[in-house]
């Protein structure tokens, strides 16, 4: 059952020869064979994973198997972004994050299912069928990084990479009961990640523990000369704030009065007592109404989507535009409309102005609080079928993480409650000012280690 190890445990075990790569990969492969077909997590598997891993013992990640969302370009390896338009696409290059991961000794075990082009919050818009939530297969895994979150939850990988534009790491992590870290916009290079909304796209880890998220972020973060929006700042060691007391930290709880999130908020307030007991102060505060964020995000993102998908014009990738599914077409049409002459001022430019208001609002709150916390999603993972005919479903589910996304802030999902009957989780979203991943890791790690919600941490 080596596939149930965390990344930290895997690295430690491999380095200390507690088990071999062969044993580790055998367990992972066996689990994949058992579950992948029914859960529909991997679109393409890497048959050479073990061979690659065995040479990597003396690297930071020691050859650990990692699930990669299928919108990362992987050299000579099929990359579809779950869209039939790219059905046979094999990039000639690795995304910067993949290059860094390989250099650090990470091994791609396979490419995971997602909402096609990352358009969605359920992994149902994939052109290759929906992924099921391993915690309860009658439920959705969330999205768009649903395959990566499910891979981690079902132990089909030791750890995973997702990408987030607004919720696509944190929301599936919440629904699958795992950890998801959306770094600050610009912390991790976007080069080689099929663009969804360029101004908010943030690649990041989906992991079993907060510690794993810090370990993985250490390897993928940093300036990339190939991405002009990536930060020039030096990358700190994100594991440094693990096991660090939270005493004296000021925590503001936002979105505590949102209709539809009553239960999630009630349980959250109960759980945050753990942090209070550790010496942090926790108090409710008020942020700008997140409903406005839906408008901002929808307009900005649809506009950028319509532009970013224009390159798939049928000339180069084999499959032409008739292969676009309904969701992609809907977003392209809406985006084209909002950028049209006479409408751009009314929609796109207005949305950018409101975006600035969100940035200012959050900045102001950070004058008082070190971190802000809210439920990542208003509730538990939704049941399969509820999204039918709900084009704006995802935006409602992601409402609580959209403000921090459009503001480019780091956010960390940490599970804080499990429903005994359904086996489904709730996750909290811990957000901090730009470039302060260290704070969300500190708070998330403290919560995780002082509660029993994380089964991976408690199992060994």
């Amino acid at each position, binding site marked *: 059952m080596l596939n149930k190890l965390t990344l930290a445990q895997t690295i430690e075990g491999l380095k200390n020869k507690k088990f071999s790569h062969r044993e580790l990969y055998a367990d992972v492969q066996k689990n994949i064979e058992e579950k992948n077909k029914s859960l529909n997590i991997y679109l393409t598997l890497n048959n050479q994973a073990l061979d690659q891993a065995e040479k990597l013992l003396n690297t930071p990640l020691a050859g650990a198997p990692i699930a990669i969302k299928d*919108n*990362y*370009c992987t050299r000579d390896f099929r*990359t579809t*972004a779950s869209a039939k338009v*790219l059905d046979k*696409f094999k*990039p*000639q*290059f690795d*995304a910067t994050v993949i290059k860094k991961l390989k250099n650090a000794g990470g091994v791609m075990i396979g490419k995971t299912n997602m909402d096609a082009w990352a358009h969605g919050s359920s992994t149902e818009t994939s052109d290759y069928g929906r992924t099921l939530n391993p915690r309860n297969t009658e439920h959705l895994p969330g999205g768009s990084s649903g395959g990566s979150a499910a891979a981690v939850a079902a132990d089909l990988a030791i750890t995973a990479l997702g990408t987030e534009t607004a919720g696509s790491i944190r929301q599936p992590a919440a629904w699958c009961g795992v950890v998801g870290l959306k770094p600050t916009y610009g912390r991790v290079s*976007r*080069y*080689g*990640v*099929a*663009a969804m*909304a*360029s*101004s908010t796209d943030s690649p990041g880890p989906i992991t079993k523990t907060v510690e794993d998220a810090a370990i993985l972020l250490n390897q993928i973060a940093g300036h990339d*000369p*190939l*991405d*002009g*929006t990536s930060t020039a700042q030096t990358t700190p060691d994100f594991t440094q704030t693990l096991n660090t007391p939270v005493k004296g930290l000021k925590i503001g709880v936002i979105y505590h009065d949102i209709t539809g999130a009553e239960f999630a908020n009630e349980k959250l307030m109960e759980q945050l007592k753990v942090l209070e007991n550790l010496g942090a102060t926790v108090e409710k505060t008020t942020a700008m109404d997140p409903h406005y964020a839906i408008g901002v995000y929808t307009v900005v993102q649809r*506009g*950028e989507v*319509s*532009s970013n*998908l*224009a*390159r*798939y*014009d049928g*000339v*180069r990738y084999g499959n032409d535009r008739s292969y676009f599914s309904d969701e992609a077409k809907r977003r392209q049409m809406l985006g*084209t409309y909002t*950028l*049209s*002459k006479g409408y*751009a001022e009314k929609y*796109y430019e207005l949305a950018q102005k409101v975006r600035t208001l969100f940035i200012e609002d959050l900045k102001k709150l950070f004058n008082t609080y070190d971190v802000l916390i809210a439920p990542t999603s208003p509730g538990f993972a939704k049941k399969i079928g509820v999204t039918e005919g709900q084009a704006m479903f995802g935006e409602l589910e992601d409402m609580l993480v959209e403000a921090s996304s459009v503001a480019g802030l780091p956010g960390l999902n940490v599970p804080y409650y499990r429903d005994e009957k359904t086996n489904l989780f709730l996750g909290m979203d811990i957000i901090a000012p730009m470039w302060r991943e260290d704070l969300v890791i500190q708070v998330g790690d403290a919560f995780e280690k002082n509660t029993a919600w994380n089964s991976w941490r408690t199992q060994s």
Partner: protein
Amino acid sequence: MKWQETYEAVIGLEVHAELKTTSKMFCGCNNDPFGADKPNIYTCPVCLGMPGGIPVANKRAIEWTIKLGYATGCSINEFSKFDRKHYFYPDLAKGYQISQYDLPFCYNGIIETPMGKVRLRRIHLEEDTGKLMHTSIEGKKVSLIDFNRGGVPLVEVVTEPDIKSGTQAKEYGKKLRHILRFLDIADCDMEQGGMRLEANISLRKKGETELPNYKVEIKNINSFRFMEAAIDYELTRQAEILETGKTPVQETRGWNSQKNETFSQRIKEEAEDYRYFPDPDLPPFHFSKEYLAEIKKTLPELTNEVTTRWTKEFSIQPNKAEELAMVDDAKLISWLEKILNLLKENKLNITSFINDYINKKIEVKDFEEPSSVIEKFRAAHKTEEVGDELLATTIKQVLAENQDAVQKYQTGQKQVFGFLMGQMLRSLGKKVDPQLIRQTLQAALES
């Protein structure tokens, strides 16, 4: 009918020129589309528009564009950005071109032509597209795309509708090309497409000041001569239509250089919607005053400044000074100036030298030793000594043979002097100092 009698031409030009930076505008690929020996060898995920390809702006191309702005008297936008311009075409890898919309790097400039000032509306920077080739392979008609040119930095210089004739358009184009070459930022090879011209042409009644309610665009002209001819043709064609009381159709026309006429390509009823928005991949620019000053400092002394200075320093006509200063290689200016100084020191005729140099009457290599140039100029004008005796006998002989003319001269018809001078030079049959002959002949006639 001559259109000039009733109408006034309203012409604006849009000129594209490829900058000769080492690498492309938004990636590290070689910028050498004309030197590439195979298609698609200078490409990468960015200029091919692959998923996840992200542009990073070429700093030098931006600095060169700003430099061009300073050379043409433009104001510079201290806050600027790149925007995406959307349209579908197979040679456009991303479905949009990275260009500049409302905040071009440069605006409000001027380029002088012999027929008057032409105001520049803007100069912006964008990326070139790939190149389509329609050909057949094994009997099958195919269209191929070469992306060696895709992503090459391209400046676009847009004028106000100040141009009044085909000739002025040509002069403007030549001047702009001269500036681009003089700044050493573009080769402007028109045949290869390194510089491309578009003209917007319409006519209005003389005395009117409003813009006409139509315009005809002529695209893809690859020589100044064709542009002049196309504009002249178009003005006559439009005048004929206007004379019948109709308005010419708003459209894009091409130039058929075999038939010497324009032809309709595409009817354009309203402005296209390119759905411009700021490119989220490229952070906007805030240029500091210091940074802009640094760029300005790299400007060479410009042709009009050299002209003014030379006019004064060497006491020559401004048009002569400009003729000499209009070199495409800025490094030639200091070399020419050394020659001018030597001419001045030696009290030689500078205007005469300029004429010889421009008309290639003396063979001079660029950057040749200035003293050697002076020698060549002297040699070209070297005169043989004429002995007093020979001069006296020749005068005597010419006067004797042309008594009619002598008489005319002496009765006041001074214009025959030229004829007598000619006779003198022919009789002497040598390259002699005409000044000396003139003086001696005049003295003989007056005595």
